[in-house]
C-alpha cells in the first residue's frame, strides 16, 4: 500500500549484496553489520538504519539469511543473522551481477580506452 521510499530504492540490491558479503565472515547482529560495512569502506558507505533493518528482514523473508537470538560479547541479547546455503548461492549471483554492472559503468565513463 505504501510505495517504497526512494532512499530504499537507491541502495536496493547493492545493500543486499553488502549485507550478504559481510555475513560471509560469520554471524553478526545488525549493528555490527552496519559498523563493518562502514569500517571496511573506510567511512565511504554509511548504512542508514532506516534501510538496514527492512533489508535484513527482507533477506530473511527470502530465506537468504537466518536469524537467531544470542548473547553478544558484551553480555546483551542480540539478533544474530547468518548466511544460509541459498544466501551463499545468491551472493555469487549478486557479486557477478555487480561486477558486470561496474564493468559496464566503467566502460561508459571511459569510452576511449
Amino acid at each position, binding site marked *: *500500500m*505504501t510505495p517504497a*521510499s526512494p532512499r*530504499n530504492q537507491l541502495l536496493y540490491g547493492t545493500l543486499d549484496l553488502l549485507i550478504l558479503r559481510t555475513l560471509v565472515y560469520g554471524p553478526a*547482529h*545488525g*549493528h555490527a553489520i552496519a559498523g563493518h560495512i562502514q569500517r571496511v569502506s573506510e567511512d565511504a558507505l554509511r548504512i*542508514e*538504519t*532506516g534501510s538496514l*533493518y*527492512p*533489508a*535484513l*528482514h*527482507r533477506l*530473511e*523473508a*527470502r*530465506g537468504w539469511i537466518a536469524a537467531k*537470538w544470542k548473547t*553478544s560479547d*558484551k553480555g*546483551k*541479547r*542480540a*539478533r544474530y543473522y547468518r548466511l544460509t546455503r541459498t544466501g551463499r548461492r545468491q551472493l555469487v549471483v549478486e557479486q557477478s551481477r555487480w561486477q558486470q554492472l561496474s564493468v559496464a559503468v566503467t566502460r561508459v565513463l571511459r569510452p576511449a580506452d
Partner: protein
Amino acid sequence: MLRQVLHRFRCLWHRRRKDAELDDEIRFHLAAEAEERIDAGLAPEQAHAEAQRDFGNVLLTRELSREAWGWAPAECLLRDIGSAFRMMRRNTGYTCAVVLTMALGIGLNAPMYEMLSRLFLQAPPHIVDPDTVHRLWVRERDDSENRGSFTGPAIARDRMQWPEFSALTAGNAHVDAVAGYTAPRFTPNGRGQTAENLRVSWITGEFLDLLGVEPVAGRLIGPVDDDLAATPVAVVSDGYQRERFTNPREALGATLEFDDVTYVVVGVLPPGFSGPDPNRADVWLPLEPAVTASRGEYWRRFGSGFSLRPLVRLPPGLTVEAAGAAATAAVRVARADSPSGGSLDPEATVVLGSILRMRGPSPLPGEIRLTLVVGGVTLLVLLIATVNMSNLLLVRVAARRRELAVRYALGAGRWGVGRLLAIESLVLATVSGAAALTVTAAAGRTLRLMLLPGHQQTADALNVTAIGFTGIAVLAIGLCAAIAPAVYAARSRQIERLDSSRGASALGTPVRTGLIVVQAALSLVLLCGTAVFYRSFEAARQVDVGYAKENLLTVELGDFGGSPLDESTVGAMEVRVRNLPGVRDVAQGTNTPMGSAAAGGGLRVEGHDRPPFRYGPYVNLTSTNFFEVTGLEVLEGRGFNEWDRADTQNVAVINMTFAQQAWPSRSPVGRCLFVGSEATDCTTVVGVVESALEWGLLATDSHPVYFLPISQATSTTPLSMFAANQRVLIVRTRDHPGTVVAPVLSILADLFPELPRHTVQSLPAIFASQIETWRIGTRLFGASAALAVLLAAIGLYAVIAFGVRQRELEFGIRRALGAQASRLLRMVLTRGFSLAAAGIVAGTLAALWAGRFVEPLLFDGRTPRDPLAFAAAALVLLTIAVMASFLPARRASRADPRQALEAE
C-alpha cells in the same frame, strides 16, 4: 519457495511476538550505538540522544521492516474482514434480516437446485454410459370419438403393450439391447394389516444388465429368471436392505410375498439406484412371474391393460432416427397383426428420447411443474435477498461518505475502496451461507418429500451438490451485491468533497430507490402468486364433488385371490361397524367413492344402437341406502328401496351425466336399460341422481354411471360375479371420519385378516390429496411473499429514514417558515407511497409475464392474470409501504425549527 511461504505464515501467526522482537532488535541497536559513543568519551545522556538522532525515524523503520515480512496484504484483508464484522454489529437489525433472507434464499435454493438437476440434468446414478440408453416414446392419436378414426390430439407416452414390446425384441436386431420395466407401484408384501406396502417395479430379464448396474451383494435378475418355470427371485434396493438388515449379505435369501408368490432375494442394488426414473423403488421382480400372478395369464394380449416402459441401448454408429424408424416399423406390424390391435392408431410413430424422462416429448406432469415454479419462487427470494444486501451496503456507503472521502484524499484507489466493499459483502454472504447450510439440512428433506414424495431421496439433504451450490451462490451473491455500492462509491469520489456539509443532496438515492423499487416489484410478483394460488385453492376446496365427503369413510373388501366374498361375513362387518359409536349409517357398493369405478360394459341403452357415451359407462351395485349415506341427491324419480328385490322388476338409477348423454331431451325415468349384451329384459330407470366427481375436480370429470341394487344382482344377471368379488362399505360418521379408523381396522382384522391397512380410507384425506397442488402452492408462495414484503418494508424504511435524516435541517427550516406538521408528514408518506407505486407498476408487468409459468397449475383453467388477486396484492404492498414510511415521516413532521436555525 515452500520455506518462504512457511516463513510468511509463521510471521503472520506470531505477529505479536515478531513485533516485540523487532522492538528488541532496534533497542539493542540503539544501546550498542550509544555504548560506542560513551566509549568515545561522550556523556551517557548525550550518547543516547545522538544514537537516537542518527537512527532516524524509528516508527518508519519498524513499519518498513514489517512490510518485509510479507503479510501486508494479508493484514489488510484481516483488517477489512474485521471492519466488515464491526459494520454488521452496528447494523444488527438489518444484518439479521439480510442474513435470514439470504439463509432462506440460499438454503432453500440448494435442495431445489439438486432436485431439478436430478430431474433434468444428471443421468440417474449407477447407469453405465447413460447417453446411449434411450427411452422409447410412442406418439399416437386417440380414437376419442370411438368411430374408428384417429383424429384426437397426438399424445406421446413412454409405454408399450406387450405385443409391441416383444416385436421390438424380435425384429429390431439393430439395437444392442431392449429392456422394459414398470413404474414402481405400491404392493403389499404378504397379507393382513401388518403387510408392508412396498414400491415394486417389474422388469424384464435384460433390464438391469442393460443399465450396467453392479449389485453390492449377490447377483442381478437375468433373462433366465424372467420365466414362469424359474424359481421366483427378487432384488432389493439399498434403502430397503438398510431398514431391515445390518449388512447387504444378510438380505440374501430373505423372502418376500407379492400376490401369493414367494420371491427369494438374490441381490442388493447399490445406494441411490432407482432405475432410469427418479421414482423410488424398493423391490424389483422379474416380469413374467410377477405380472402373471397379479394380472392373470392374459396380460400378453392387446387391451389387457398391462403396459411397460421400454428402454434401448444403441450401439455406436446407429443413429437415434434409424433406431426410431426400426422401432416404428416393429410397432406398426405388431398392431396390424393382431385383431385387437386395430383399436390403436396404426400410424403411431416411435421416437427415442433421453433417459431422463422429464426431457421426453410429453408435457411435464403437474408435480414437476409445481417443483419448477417453486424453484422459480425460491430463486426470486434469493434475488430479493441479494438486492436487500446490496441496499444495506449502499446505505452504509452513504453513511460513510466522509470516511470514504478521507480514504480517497489519502490516496486510496477506487480499487481499494471497491475491495473493501466486496469484502464486506462477501463476509455477509459467507455468514449467510453458513446459516443457509443449516436451513438446507433442516428443510431440504421436508421440501423434497413435500414436492416429490415418491422420489428416490439421497440419504442426506446436505450433500455435495447442495454444499457446492451454496459455495458458488455465496461467492456470486457476495460479488453481485457489491457492484452497486462500489459503483456508487467510485462515482461519489468525483463529487464528494471533504467538507461536504450535512445538507448536501442525498447521493446514491437513485440507485437505492431503484433497488427498493425492484424489491417492491419482486414482492408484488410473489404476492400476486399467493393470491392467485389461494383463489385456486379456495375454488378447489369448495368444489361440490357430489358426495357429502366430510364424514365419509370407505372400506374396500375383496379383490384378493379372486375367491368370492362370503356374504355373511360382509353382513357381520356391516353390523359391527354400524354399532360403533360415532357411526351414523353404513351402505354397500362395488365402487369406492372418489377412488375406483368399474366399467359396466355390455350395456345397451334404449334408443341407441351403440353406447352413446364418450367414456364409460361405469356401474355401481349398491345397497338401498347408498344415496342417503353418500349424500348423492336424487334429482328425479326415486332411489332404491326395500321393494327392489330379486323377485320384483329390475330397476336402475342413473346419474345426471348418463341421463344427459343418453336422453338429452327427454325424461329418463321409465326408460329401459339392457344389462348384458344378450339381455332382452328391461331394467327400468327409476331415478336420476346428481353426478359425482370420482377422480378429478372439474365438471367435465364426471362420467356416466348407472346404479343397480345388489339385491337384484342374482346369479341370473351377468354382473353377479362382479358383485360377489367386490364390495365397499361406505361409512357415514358423526364427526371427522379419522376418529373411527382404528376401531374399523380392528373389526377388519377380525373378519378379513388378509386385507391390508390401506383398504380403509377417509374421503377428506382423498380429497386433501387431490387439492394438494394448490395447498402447497399457496403455502410456499405465501411464506415467500411474507418474507419478501417484510424485507421490502425494512428496505423502504431504511431508505426513507435515511433521506429524512439527511434532510432534517431542511424540514426544520420548512417548519420555521411555517410549514404545517401534517404537510411534512404527507410529503414523506407520499415518497414512500410513490416508491411502492412504482414497484407495483413494474411488479404487475413482471407478474403478467410470469403468469404463464403458473397457468397450467391453476384450478379449472383459472387465469393467473386475475384482476382481483392483483388488486389485493397491490393493496397489501401499498399498506406496508405507508406503514414503513410512517415512522420517518413522523420524525420529519416533528423536526425542530430551533435546531435548524441554530445550525445555520
